[in-house]
């Protein structure tokens, strides 16, 4: 360590309002304490030189016994071997989740591909498309859990709670009911298949009530959509909302990989500065001269407000500037307990 005994006071760090004497604060790294040393604690899996073991099952022995990826999702996320019907149902759900045309994940993957990256960057980026609107499985699932709890707690009927849920979430992208699947039977077929396989449970039953309630309230034609069908089916298969979120996002990522490949095969790479943004798409301030730096004080407007009224006025004014962030309200919480229920966005 360098000799810093006669260090000068730097900037404001010697200010008497400082709660400590900054100049005498210690340098140097922290020595280990007497607790157990760090280890990667896991209840999901371990490996040694010879084996890989997930939830107690050797994974090579699992595949030798004929279990596959879909079965192992149950092992990893639920610590159990699924029934054959459950395995069939998850296969069905994953096929339906694999491809969705040029929707967000594929579009992101293709955009990343244009920059000449690894395929895995594009696949990873596609997973980031899953939020609380597109592929909102955690928001949807946690909403079902919360409202189903009210059936028991408040002694309400399933239909009654479904109506309440719809009233409170009518415009929510995570409702699971929309006008998206009016002409496409795929969502309803998924529920029918779950019922046929005997794996439908309380989440599918509740979602059906939500559909009925939404159809009663909505002026426009609405029906079960893929979010609602997939989310409820996955939860009846025993997956948590978060596990569902991850499984479906990763499943979609395989197809995002194909879109990456096609983009590279059929397209061309993009260079920095290449893409233009037409002026007709611009609706910000009109072109204006850059004021001389010497006249900064004359032109600059300070942001500080000094009363609550001034603050409110400035706040509302700033909302008019798109891209400033003033129109967005977020309540960012620790998602360990619940994901998707907090307010994110407008």
């Amino acid at each position: 360590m360098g000799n810093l005994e006669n260090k000068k006071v730097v900037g404001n760090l010697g200010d008497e309002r400082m709660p400590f004497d900054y100049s005498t604060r210690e340098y140097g790294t922290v020595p280990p304490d007497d607790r157990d040393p760090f280890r990667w604690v896991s209840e999901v899996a371990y490996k040694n030189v010879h084996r890989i073991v997930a939830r107690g099952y050797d994974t090579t022995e699992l595949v030798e016994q004929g279990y596959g990826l879909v079965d192992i999702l149950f092992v990893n996320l639920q610590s159990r071997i699924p029934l054959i019907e459950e395995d069939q149902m998850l296969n069905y759900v994953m096929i339906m989740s694999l491809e969705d045309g040029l929707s967000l994940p594929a579009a992101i993957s293709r955009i990343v591909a244009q920059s000449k990256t690894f395929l895995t960057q594009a696949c990873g980026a596609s997973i980031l498309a899953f939020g609380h609107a597109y592929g909102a499985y955690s928001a949807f699932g946690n909403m079902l859990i919360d409202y189903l709890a009210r059936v028991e707690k408040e002694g309400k009927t399933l239909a009654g709670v479904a109506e309440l849920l719809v009233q409170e979430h009518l415009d929510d992208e995570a409702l699971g009911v929309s006008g998206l699947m009016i002409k496409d039977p795929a969502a309803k077929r998924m529920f029918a298949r779950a019922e046929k396989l005997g794996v439908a449970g309380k989440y599918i039953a509740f979602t059906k009530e939500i559909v009925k309630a939404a159809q009663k309230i909505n002026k426009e034609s609405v029906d079960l959509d893929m979010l609602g069908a997939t989310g409820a089916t996955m939860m009846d298969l025993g997956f948590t909302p978060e596990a569902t979120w991850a499984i479906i996002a990763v499943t979609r990522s395989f197809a995002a990989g194909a879109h990456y490949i096609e983009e590279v095969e059929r397209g061309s790479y993009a260079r920095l500065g290449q893409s233009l943004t037409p002026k007709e798409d611009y609706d910000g301030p009109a072109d204006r001269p850059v004021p001389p730096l010497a006249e900064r004080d004359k032109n600059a407007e300070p942001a500080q407000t000094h009363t609550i009224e001034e603050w409110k006025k400035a706040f509302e004014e700033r909302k008019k500037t798109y891209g400033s962030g003033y129109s967005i309200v977020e309540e960012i919480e620790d998602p360990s307990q619940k994901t998707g229920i907090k307010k994110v966005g407008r």
Partner: protein
Amino acid sequence: MNREPLFRRKTAISYKTEEKTVMRGYDLSEMAEEGYSFSDALFVLFQSRIPTQNEEKMLKYEMGAFLEHSMSPSAAGAIGVINGRPNLPAAVAASVMTFGGVHGPGAAHGYMMNKYIERARVEGKSLDEMAKILVDEYMDAQKPVMGMGQPQHRDSDPRAEPIHIKQEELGLNGVYLEFQRAVEKYFHARRKKEGKSHVGVNVVGAGNAALCDLGFAPNAAWCLGSVCRGYSCAAHALYHMKKGRAWGASKNEPMVQMIDLSMIKYIGPEDREVPSQEERQEYARKQKEEGEYKKWVI
């Protein structure tokens, strides 16, 4: 609701209308109703064809074997990211993005095989002869032979040889397996001759040979391997998210945490005073002239 295309592209992969989603000509819902598996769908996605039953079995086996690998860069990445408690997809995405040049480099191994198999064709050599050339070229250049060795499974990757055997059992062995087996033979022989320890085939060598024989191009094969790891990394991230402590530095845990301050070992320049702005120009000039800083440039 605006249902205009988000992104316009000519694509041979899929289309989606209000009535259906069609991938490579097949209505997805019809495929699922018919009882095809997810593995079948992946053949349709990447190869535009329905696989044979044994091909489907092989992919199911491989992806089952790939899915979980406990603590690898991918799981560590997912756990590191989830410690800040972002939305879960951020951690899963990070795990998939750890797959690069050395962690599951499936595409690179595939391209290597394609290059040398093509050379065998052009130079009129057998796969066996070309495998020896590959091993010699890589080892002469002191480059690791892709598909061989795993830093944790030092006495052979538990997934690798069973994948080879399964591929043979299912009658799916083609040029890639033949070539990979030959690479392994010459690799082992050369290491033995040089008095080096045995280094087994890894899951990239075995798994990728099988995926290539199943008709997947190198990048498609890489996609299958690396993306399916995302599932298990989601489980690792979820475990930490739901049952672990955020940040990974708490002093209240009985075990030292991942980024506890004591985990930091610093080996950089000595502690030094920050020069004032008045001293700055002279200080910086001297620092540049002395050049000591160059040894720290990364």
